[in-house]
């Protein structure tokens, strides 16, 4: 148990996933392979930032310690971030970014679908709203993974490489820990492990259509959602994202 309680902890997880991935996607602005992709990436990033704000607003409310969503986003350090390792991985090439997106989206839709039935009406409401966006995201990322996997030999090989490289970050999404079990007991959130079969079904279909070989390794890197051991990349994301607030702490923007 942490100071803010399990629900606070869980809300930070949801919020930080959206925030960090939104931040990553916005790095693409102005440099995507085509104008349509640039616009679509910005769209997804905007949805995620909006979701991050809703989750972190609620986290701040639940914590009831006088912090705001901006305080949570801009003033916590690495060890207090609760996002999955997957979302803090660097963008890599466009194929890598879209593979990461597809893996996240495929988990995200399942998670939000279940969360829409949360006993906490506030969680249910945010989830129902976010689920619509996530369904659209996964449609698009799946389509891109298929198009590039089943494209040219070069695009195929890049997509296979991306999938292989990111695979060890998939397991964390379905790993149950204390917080998850407590949330599940209170009927506030599903057990992550229960989301795996839905994820697998979509994953198998898309990977097959993409003519990619599903990786088989069972190893999962952990340490993001409990904040115990983030990758080295998160600190660099925060140095950018939080810079102004840290450099001019008493200012309004």
């Amino acid at each position, binding site marked *: 148990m942490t100071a803010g309680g399990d629900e606070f902890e869980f809300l930070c997880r949801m919020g930080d996933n959206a*925030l960090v991935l939104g*931040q990553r996607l*916005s*790095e693409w*602005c*102005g*440099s*995507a*392979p*085509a*104008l*349509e*992709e*640039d*616009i679509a990436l*910005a*769209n997804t*990033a*905007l949805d995620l*930032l*909006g979701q*991050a*704000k809703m989750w*972190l607003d609620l986290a701040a409310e639940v914590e009831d310690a006088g912090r705001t*969503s*901006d305080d949570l*986003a*801009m003033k916590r350090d690495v060890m207090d971030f609760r996002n999955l390792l997957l979302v803090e991985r660097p963008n890599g*090439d*466009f*194929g890598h970014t879209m593979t990461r997106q597809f893996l996240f989206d495929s988990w995200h839709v399942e998670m939000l679908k279940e969360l829409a039935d949360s006993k906490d009406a506030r969680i249910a409401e945010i989830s129902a709203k976010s689920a619509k966006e996530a369904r659209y995201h996964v449609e698009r990322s799946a389509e*891109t993974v*298929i*198009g*590039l996997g*089943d*494209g*040219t030999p*070069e*695009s*195929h090989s*890049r997509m296979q490489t991306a999938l292989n490289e990111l695979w060890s970050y998939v397991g964390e999404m379905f790993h149950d820990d204390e917080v998850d079990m407590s949330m599940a007991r209170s009927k506030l959130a599903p057990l992550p492990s229960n989301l795996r079969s839905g994820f697998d079904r979509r994953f198998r279909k898309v990977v097959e259509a993409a003519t990619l070989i599903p990786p088989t390794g069972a190893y999962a890197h952990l340490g993001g959602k409990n904040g115990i051991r983030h990758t080295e990349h998160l600190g660099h994301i925060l140095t*950018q*994202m939080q*810079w*102004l*607030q840290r450099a*001019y702490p*008493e*200012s*309004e*923007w």
Partner: protein
Amino acid sequence: MYAQMVESTASDDDPEKLAAFQARIDAGEKIEPKDWMPEGYRKTLIRQIGQHAHSEIVGQLPEGNWITRAPTLERKAILLAKVQDEAGHGLYLYCAAETLGVSRDEMTEMLLEGRMKYSSIFNYPTVTWADIGAIGWLVDGAAIMNQVPLQRTSYGPYSRAMIRICKEESFHMRQGFDIMMKMANGSREQKRMAQDALNRFWYPSLMMFGPSDGDSVHSSQSMAWKIKISSNDELRQKFVDQTVPQADYLDLKIPDPELKWNQDKGGYDFSEPDWSEFHAVLKGNGPCNSDRMKARIRAWEDGRWVRDGLMAHAQKKAAGKVAAE
């Protein structure tokens, strides 16, 4: 403006056809892609719309530079949405230019090879957060000055693109002014950043309208064709007259000792920007020209495998459908 110093191409078409064409324009009719048009009209429009489209796309870069550093969640979302709008503007405009028989890929190649230009303003760096405010306030403000009259331009697809674009521009300017307001009323450091941003962006913003038209043949031809509606000086004067009271409201000082109200003309007198700097920027010697082009070239080249891959997949799918029939 976003299209600066566009050269018009003279036409050596049949004089009777030319006269009929001019009569349509004078009567306020819209010219549509399938209509007959002088070769010069077509070429000048491609140059102008293309330059405008490129400006939207290159213009993503200076503001994109601050998205990952925006100070609050809300500011980040607003800026991202704004820059996304600019990409959308580029898309509308490329589509409008395509109706004249040149593809987006061709125009992109021309930009990357330096055969087409984009607005000088995007070759200036955004070094502090206040610059994001200054760009929305001044650069989008200047863009609006130019684009509002262009809604009435004679070429149908261009006019319709402008109408869509203008709807979004006022939000761009407002978000910029709002940032400036926070900064100008903020801490001593914030106020300093706001003044510094205005100092750096004032003259480059005035340059956006291009040098005085004088007796430029290009301008008078374009005006006759209604692909240019107002003169550069007219627009610049309007911009200054609109902006000075806003700067006063912000309690920021416009960096021009000669600036003063002229009762007789009902507008401000102001100093001309340094036109040698403007020409240097157009020639490629602005502070960011080479960085901007490098960024666009890298995006285009790094994206090739993606475009090829998606194209190959689409072709396979289409072939599969044919085979199945």
